C-alpha cells in the first residue's frame, strides 16, 4: 500500500545560515533508491548533495532552484511502498508548511501514537527557526499584512539573487564604509599596447592582461602597495597575485593571476582565459575567494571612458580601466590622434598617501607605454 512521504531538508548548514536549492538530480515520476542523490544544495560552506531517505517515486517537488529553504522544510513528496520511518520531529510543533503536509501521511506505529511527546522543542536552534516561520523570513517579527499602504501580499516583486551576489554586496558595502578611499586619475598612450595586441597571431591578448603586467612590474619599485593595514601596522600581503574582475552571469568574481611579474602579457592572458572558462563552467574551486594584493577592473568593453572602483578588501588598491579609444593629444605643440586609455586608481589611504600612490600609478603608465 503506497504512502506519501515528505522529504525534508536535512540540517546541513554549518552555521545558522540558509540553504539554497541548486538543482534537482531526479525528475518527477522517476523511481529513486534510498541513498540516491535527490538534489544539490548550497550551504554557507559548500555545495552538498541531499540523499533520499526512502525508496520510491518522486511525486512532487516543492522547492525550486535558487530558492532558499530552511532545515526541516518539506521540499518534496515521495510515494513509497516501504513502511516509511516514523519520524520523531526534533520539535513536536507542526510545521507551518501544512499545505503539503496534509497530503503526506506517515505510517504511525501503534506505540508511537500512544507516546507522551517528551521531545517538545528542546533543541533551541530549531525552536528559534520555528518561531520565526510564522513571519516573513526576511523580516522576522514584521507581518507584511499589518504594514499600512503596502501592496497586497503576493504583488511585491522580489528578485532573488545568488549567494555570490549577496557575498559581494556585503564585502563591497563593508569596504565603502570602512576603507578611506582616495582616487587618482590619469591616462596613458595605448599605442604600443594596441600594436602588440595586433601583432599577436591567434586569440587576441586580453586587454586586462597588459594592465596586470604593468602593475606587477610597477610593484617592484613601489612595494608598499602590496601591504595591508591591520591593527595599526602594515602587513605584507601573503601573495604576489593580482586579481582581475570577471563577470559571470551577472555575478562578480575576482580571478587571481599568480606570480604576474614573471609572465608576459600573452601568458597572463592565457591564464586569465583559462580561469575565466573554469569559472563559467561552474568549477567551485574557481569560485573561491583567493588572496591578491590588487585588483584590475575593466569596463572599456561597455564603452565606459573612465570610472572609479571600490577597493576589494584586504587589498590596498584597485585599478579601473576605461575604453581604449583614439583621442586628440598635444605632442610637441601639435595635435595628433593617438590611442589613449584612462586609468583610475582607488587607494586605501591607511596604506599609502597620495604621493606614493601617484608615483605607483605613474610607474604603471610608464610600463604600458614602454611595451614593445
Amino acid at each position, binding site marked *: 500500500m503506497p504512502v506519501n512521504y515528505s522529504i525534508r531538508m536535512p540540517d546541513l548548514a554549518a552555521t545558522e545560515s540558509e540553504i539554497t536549492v541548486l538543482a534537482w538530480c531526479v525528475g518527477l515520476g522517476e523511481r529513486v533508491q534510498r541513498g540516491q542523490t535527490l538534489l544539490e544544495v548550497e550551504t554557507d560552506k559548500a555545495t*552538498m548533495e541531499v540523499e533520499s531517505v526512502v525508496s520510491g517515486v518522486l511525486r512532487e517537488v516543492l522547492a525550486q532552484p535558487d530558492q532558499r529553504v530552511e532545515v526541516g522544510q518539506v521540499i518534496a513528496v515521495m510515494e513509497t511502498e516501504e513502511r516509511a520511518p516514523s519520524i520523531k*520531529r526534533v520539535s513536536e510543533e507542526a510545521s507551518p508548511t501544512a499545505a503539503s503536509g496534509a497530503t503526506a501521511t506517515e505510517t504511525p506505529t501503534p506505540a*508511537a501514537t500512544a507516546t507522551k511527546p517528551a521531545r517538545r522543542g528542546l533543541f533551541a536552534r530549531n525552536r528559534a527557526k520555528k518561531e520565526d516561520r510564522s513571519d516573513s523570513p526576511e523580516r522576522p517579527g514584521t507581518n507584511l499584512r499589518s504594514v499600512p499602504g503596502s501592496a497586497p501580499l503576493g504583488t511585491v516583486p522580489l528578485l532573488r539573487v545568488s549567494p555570490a551576489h549577496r557575498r559581494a554586496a556585503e564585502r563591497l558595502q563593508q569596504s565603502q564604509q570602512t576603507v578611506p578611499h582616495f582616487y587618482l586619475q590619469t591616462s596613458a598612450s595605448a599605442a604600443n599596447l594596441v600594436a602588440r595586441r595586433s601583432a599577436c597571431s591567434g586569440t587576441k591578448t586580453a586587454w586586462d592582461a597588459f594592465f596586470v603586467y604593468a602593475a606587477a612590474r610597477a610593484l617592484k619599485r613601489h612595494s608598499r602597495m602590496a601591504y595591508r593595514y591591520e591593527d595599526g601596522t602594515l602587513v605584507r600581503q601573503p601573495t604576489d597575485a593580482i586579481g582581475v574582475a570577471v563577470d559571470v552571469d551577472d555575478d562578480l568574481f575576482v580571478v587571481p593571476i599568480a606570480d604576474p611579474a614573471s609572465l608576459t602579457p600573452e601568458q597572463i592572458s592565457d591564464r586569465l582565459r583559462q580561469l575565466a572558462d573554469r569559472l563559467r563552467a561552474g568549477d567551485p574551486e574557481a569560485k573561491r575567494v583567493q588572496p591578491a594584493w590588487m585588483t584590475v577592473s575593466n569596463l572599456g568593453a561597455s564603452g565606459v571612458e573612465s570610472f572609479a572602483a571600490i577597493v576589494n578588501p584586504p587589498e590596498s588598491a584597485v585599478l579601473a580601466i576605461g575604453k581604449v579609444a583614439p583621442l586628440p593629444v598635444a605632442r610637441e605643440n601639435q595635435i595628433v590622434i593617438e590611442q589613449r586609455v584612462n586609468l583610475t586608481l582607488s587607494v586605501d589611504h591607511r596604506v599609502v598617501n597620495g604621493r606614493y600612490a601617484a608615483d605607483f600609478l605613474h610607474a604603471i603608465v610608464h610600463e604600458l607605454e614602454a611595451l614593445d
Partner: protein
Amino acid sequence: MTSTAEQPPRPINARGYDRGFLLGLYETMVLIREFEEGVKYLFLEGSMPGTVHQCQGQEATAVGVCAALNEEDWITSTFRGHGHALAKGLSVEEMLFELFGARTGCAKGKGGSMHMGNMAKGMIPAIAIVGGSIPIAAGMALAFKMKRTQQVVACFFGDGAVAEGAFHEGVNLAAIWDLPVVFVCENNLYGASTRVDKVMKTPTIAERTSAYGLRGERVDGNDVLAVHEAAQRAVEECRAGAGPVLLELLTYRRGGHSRRDACHYQPKEERERWLERDPIDRFAQALIAREDVQEDELTAIRDRVVKQFNETVERAKRQPLPSLEELCTDVYA
C-alpha cells in the same frame, strides 16, 4: 606520500582461524557499517539532532584491535568513536539511546555522539579533543603498571592527532616508563580536510616512534586479520612489560569528516581506489574462500544486524529525556 593504496590490495587469508571467531569479526564490522549508515539516514530524515562523525570504511581497525583485548583491558577513543564503542562491546541500544539524547543512553543523554563510553565495559567516554586521550591513556597504563594488574589500554587516535603536543608528551612518557599502551593511529590520510602529507615530513607515522624509543608498525588497516595479528603482538609485548607499541593502521573514510562535510577534497580516483579495498568486502571474500562459510550466511548476518538496528531505533525514539532538574548533574566534576 606512499600509501598502501598504490599497491593492489592483498587478498586476506582467513585459513588457520576458528570459524566462529572469524564470523564474529565479520558480524561486528557489519554491525558498525549498518549502524553508521542507519544513523546517517536518521539525520537526513530529521529525527536525530546534533552532528556526528562517522567511520564507514574504517571498520577493520576497531574490530581488529578490540578482538585482541581482554574484557579487563581498556580503550580510549575519539569523536569518530562509534566503531570503537561497538567493537569494545557497547550495545546498539545504549548508543542509539545516547544519540537520541535519552537519559537511558550510555552517557545519560549528556554526552552524545562524540563521548561514547561505558566504564563497565572498559571504554572511558571518548575525548573529542584531538589527541586529548593520549596522555590519559598513558596515565591509565601507569595505574595498571603500579597496581601490577596486567591490564593494557589501546589508545585510538587519528593522523591529525600526531601533530599535537599531547601526542609527544603521552608517547614519550609511556616510552620512558615502559607503560602498557598500544597506541593505535588510524591514518585515514585526512585530518578533517587536510591531507596528511601536508602536515608531516616523514613518509610514515610508524617511523616516528624511533624518536621516542618504542616499536612502531605500519599495517594495512583495511585487513581485519592483519590488524588483529599486529594488535595481538603489541598487546603481548605490553603485558610482558616490554613497553608501549604504536600501530599505524592505513585506512580511509567513505564519508565526510562530519555530516556537514561535502568531502570535495577527496580526489575521485583516490576514493575509488579505496572503495576497492573496502574492509568488509575483502573479508567477506576471504570467508567465502573457506569451504565452511557460505554467502547466504553472511547475508543472514547483515539482515539480522539491520533488523536489530531498526527495532532499536523505534525504542530509542520513545526513551525519556533528561529532566530539567538533572541539568547540572554529572556536568561538573
